[in-house]
């Protein structure tokens, strides 16, 4: 294969992986605090539409991404109120958030369907960015790609190297023990949920601002669910979240390139690849039930009522 093709595949893999990486990192922190938010798909859609609409209206992509994060956090706030304050079932509320997000984003985005937008600008350092293959890969991305990698490092350091991260994990392992030690379980979880929402919002906005710079209904196409699968795939370890997101991004891109190369397989079957890969990876990871049980936060999905 010509090295231009390799560069193209690698570059588009980064592009396809970044939305899932943001969302999965957010969900990792949420789940580490003991809350399972299945609303990632809905929050990503809300982020995607807000990011697009704000950027289209103001011309500022930075403002678009920031407000997408705020919108994602607000959407997850609804989930937080229901599950943490009103003690509702987390699985059901997460599904509700996804259904609500699909509807709300379609409602907001209706006037913007089919309108073009210029994609996020990419870094260019003359000399460095011109090195074959690794040049554009390392020195030629847009700002959000670098931010996603920095966020991965930050989340890793926060969870494993800071006192606050330890408290989040303690709340996720045993909310009763954390409560007895005097930590505000509900408050900590609320912040973790809002962080997850903000990250999903940013991930969604990356789809509508960089990956395919346009808005279309339901454009996440299951990426929110794949982000959830990434967290399970990672067995709740931050470095593996990056690996998972890039693996699924690669499957998405590989099948697109296979379609372009006219392989003798119908395109619909090639498009199944990322979803089938997700199932396959889940099966491989989950096969060892003890390992999942050892790594999953022990209070994940359980309702806490402090009285």
């Amino acid at each position, binding site marked *: 294969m010509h090295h231009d093709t390799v560069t193209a595949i690698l570059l588009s893999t980064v592009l396809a992986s970044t939305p899932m990486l943001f969302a999965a990192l957010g969900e990792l922190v949420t789940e580490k605090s003991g809350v399972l938010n*299945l609303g990632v798909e809905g929050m990503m859609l809300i982020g995607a539409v807000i990011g697009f609409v704000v950027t289209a209206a103001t011309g500022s992509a930075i403002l678009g991404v920031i407000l997408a994060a705020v919108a994602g956090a607000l959407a997850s706030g*609804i989930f937080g*109120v*229901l599950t943490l304050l*009103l*003690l*509702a*079932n987390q*699985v*059901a*509320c997460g*599904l*509700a*958030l996804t*259904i*609500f*997000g*699909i*509807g*709300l984003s*379609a*409602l907001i985005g*209706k006037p913007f369907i089919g309108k073009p937008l210029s994609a996020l600008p990419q870094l260019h350092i003359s000399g460095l960015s011109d090195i074959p293959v690794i040049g554009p890969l390392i020195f030629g991305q847009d700002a959000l790609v670098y931010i996603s990698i920095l966020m991965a490092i930050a989340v890793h350091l926060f969870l494993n190297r800071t006192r606050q991260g330890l408290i989040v994990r303690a709340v996720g392992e045993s909310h009763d023990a954390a409560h007895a030690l005097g930590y505000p379980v509900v408050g900590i979880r609320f912040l973790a949920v809002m962080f997850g929402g903000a990250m999903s919002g940013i991930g969604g906005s990356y789809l509508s601002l960089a990956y395919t710079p346009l808005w279309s*209904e339901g454009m996440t*196409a*299951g990426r929110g*669910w*794949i982000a*959830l*699968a990434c967290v*399970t795939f990672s067995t709740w370890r931050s470095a593996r979240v990056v690996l998972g997101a890039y693996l699924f991004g690669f499957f998405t891109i590989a099948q697109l390139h296979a379609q372009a190369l006219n392989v003798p397989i*119908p395109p*619909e*079957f090639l*498009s*199944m690849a990322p*979803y*089938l890969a*997700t*199932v396959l990876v*889940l*099966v491989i990871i*989950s*096969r060892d*039930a003890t390992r*999942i049980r050892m790594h999953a936060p022990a209070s994940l999905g359980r309702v806490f*009522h402090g*009285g």
Partner: protein
Amino acid sequence: MLRLEARPQPSRTMVLATPVLAVVLTLIAGVIMFAILGADPLEALYAFFIAPIDNLYGLGELGVKATPLVLCAVGLSIGFRANVWNIGAEGQLVMGAIFGGWIGLFHNGGGGIWVLPLMFIASAIGGAFWGAIPAFLKTRFNANEILTSLMLTYVAQLFLNYLVRGPWRNPQGFNFPQSKSFDDFAAIAPMFDGTRLGFGFIVALVAAFAGWLLMSRSFLGFQIKVAGLAPAAAGYAGFSAKRLTWAAMLISGGLAGMAGLNEVAGPIGQVVAVVSPGYGFTAIIVAFLGRLHPIGIIIAALLIALSYIGGDAAQMSMNLPVAVSSVFQGMLLFFLLGCEVLIRYRIRPRLRAATG
């Protein structure tokens, strides 16, 4: 400040009152939403919830939309009671449409009155087959059924796209991604003149009744309820969690598959690329709104069906986006889940702690 005080036992009044409260809150939120959209709220509510059903055709449509919702939700509710989270009913619905539709297309121009029953059986097998995959992956490999059943929904939809664009495409269909129309033996005729309501509605009611029998009169239903409420007790009693997962996935998959066939052989009349506007997902709301009980599910399905046809009607008469329906549905589920706290808890003012 307010605090939540656990009730000694769940309030029966609240079990019935919370869905009503949730509907009222949703309507209030709807008024606010219409005002934001710049529509006269009362006019919009009328256009949304009253105008569509003030005639026979509209009432028939209510049943047309409620049919797949009841079929899917009855199956899902059985799983949810056992803590089996099948959220891939949409994919099972699509697979049912494919399997049943295949029988129908195969007998195009021939066959007899046995074709339609055979299509229903095939659709149930197709849906159950698609539900069996997450069941197998869950029981054999411990893979989360939420994610696998959802991923398989995308796979089923892509497979349907392939069929209607490839092997099943009607050669005289001007290149549209759709099959030939079913002939009379393979199509569900309306039960009443002037409506589109077919006998699938009766099938859905029978399924709801069968679901009620299963849950309240059978040992399997008892096992499901125990497994959902007290998994440890179910394990101690020797109820096999794997068997319950299989039962829940096969039943909900089969019913969702029949819902898919009812769409293609009924209102649609041929196999097309989009056989459902998300009935399989909306059925999750229906199942919860109906309190996971068959009677409740029928009422909830009629209500949600109204939000579907109301959305279509409001789009035509007031130019409101059709997505308003799913916003309504999402809000309804939010309010319902939020209100559920009242079943198990009382809201009390937080008293200053006295000394000692």
